[in-house]
């Protein structure tokens, strides 16, 4: 059972970051799987919310949309998008999970366009609720594939704020104090942010991955945590719960 794929690894790592008794605003896919896994392992009292209005559902299966009926199935409340995002703006939501087409050294994310904004090579969906969640929640977590076209020096478009251009920049811009990106979880490593520069730094490496390999797949210069550890691999029990209870049809973790 100790065989696992990259997405399973990322989900297990993400789940462990969620503190018991905390709150999280999630989307569909891996973030939702991570939250569901956390509820069954280290964070039984994790409160899950969805931006379209669902609060604390007893998820019968993976939602397809952050607004489908699963997201409030036997929930505590089915409310409005404003109520959810204002609960975040008010400071009650600890974590959010995001993805994106590009991410930079400060954890800023692009999910709007590749190329020039007015003549885009590729048009992506845009912020949706990502900018809102990353502005309001205390900690932003990112789960993403690690490649050099994604981890870029300069975003084509800054959709969603990380630490903007460094220390104090979020506060100066008017964003809530002491919020920002916490961890970036990829198929190669787990990265955090240097406290002084607010730049991304490698904190743990997945089995068989070197710092050099991570740097090769990153356009900007990565910092190193004072102590780079080995990422703890998924445990058998985590994998069992993930495969049997969280995602039995393997929608997210694949075949």
């Amino acid at each position, binding site marked *: 059972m100790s065989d696992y794929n990259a997405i399973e690894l990322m989900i297990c790592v993400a789940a462990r970051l969620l503190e018991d008794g905390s709150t999280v605003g999630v989307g569909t896919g891996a973030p939702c799987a991570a939250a569901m896994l956390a509820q069954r392992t280290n964070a039984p009292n994790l409160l899950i919310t969805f931006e379209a209005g669902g609060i604390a559902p007893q998820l019968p299966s993976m939602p397809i949309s952050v607004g489908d*009926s699963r997201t409030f199935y036997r929930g505590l409340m089915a409310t409005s998008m404003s109520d959810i995002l204002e609960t975040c703006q008010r400071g009650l939501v600890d974590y959010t999970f995001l993805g994106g087409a590009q991410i930079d050294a400060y954890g*800023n994310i692009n999910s709007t366009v590749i190329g020039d*904004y007015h*003549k885009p090579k590729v*048009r992506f969906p*845009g*912020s*949706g609720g990502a900018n*809102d969640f990353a502005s309001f929640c205390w900690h932003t977590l990112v789960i993403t594939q690690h490649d050099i076209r994604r981890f870029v020096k300069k975003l084509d478009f800054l959709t969603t704020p990380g630490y903007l251009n460094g220390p104090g920049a979020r506060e100066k811009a*008017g964003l809530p104090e002491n919020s920002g990106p916490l961890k970036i979880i990829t198929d190669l490593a787990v990265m955090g942010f240097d406290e002084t520069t607010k730049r991304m730094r490698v904190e743990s490496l997945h089995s068989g991955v070197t710092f050099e390999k991570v740097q090769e797949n990153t356009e900007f210069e990565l910092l190193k945590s004072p102590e780079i550890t080995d990422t703890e691999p998924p445990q058998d029990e985590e994998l069992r719960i993930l495969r049997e209870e969280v995602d039995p049809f393997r929608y997210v973790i694949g075949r």
Partner: protein
Amino acid sequence: MTELFSGTGPLFMNPDPDDARSFFKKKEKALVNKVMPVKEAVSKFVKDGDYLGSGGFGSNRIATAALHEILRQKKRNLGLAGHTTTHDFQILTAGNMDGEKLLSRVDVAYIVGLEARGLSPHARRVMQSGEIEICEWTNYAIACRFRAAASGIPFIPARNMLGTDTFFQSAAKEILCPFTDRKLVALPALYPDVSLIHVHESDVYGNCRINGITVADGDLARASKRVIITTEKIISNDDIRSKPWATIIPSYCVDAVCEVPYGSYPGNMPGEYFSDEAHLVEWLRAENDVEKFRQFLDKYIYDVPDFEHYLELCGGVEKIKELRAQELLLPRKE
């Protein structure tokens, strides 16, 4: 002195509350029977050039029948509040083909994608062509803009968008809080000309209930100058009056009530039927090829008279029974 910036995007709609007040003053408030076919509602209340709001959440509780009818009636140069629009956006952009422009301007929070289902090839072609004027926002920003309009004030302050290109390409403005001196973003009121909202229950006057998340529809209905309701079923006014705290949209916001059972198909209707993922995949695949997409649209939309015939083509009541079993988590028959 803190420097305050303004977004550079276009402000499509006038946020002035006195302008809106003059309109709302003349709106019908009496209890008159507003039941009519979708065809009539769209022809009467959606004009070329109008700015639309689409209720629900992209592929959940959407007013499919009204959206199709807009395509069929070949409305042109519409604006859209693109606040998590997914399948609804797909339907509307299908009107942007062969040089025709159903959509001409879009306030964007989430477009061209269908969440976990992937991106829409046709919607991307349209958006990448540059033929549609756009302005960038976020889901909460658009929800606030509806809220401001619903409240009759020209803007609402918030703490999102700040410091980003999303702000730069928006029509928002930075302001300083007069109490805390903190920088805030001011989000201008958005009064759509007409919105299309699908609900669980409505009486003939337009008093509506929604059994699930409301997304932004309470505010959207209030913000919109005209509202077309499609409803799973019409219920009696007595029923509405038996539990007035369950009413989400009051009749004085509503212009047309169209009874459309299964009206969110192929989208999800909470407690009623799940989304038809197979049909949504068929739609997405058809978009890969322009000619194939044209045929797809002819078959499912242009060559049928109404939503009921579309539903029939897609499997009719048998299909709905399947989706209902899925929605209610009924055990599958072996």
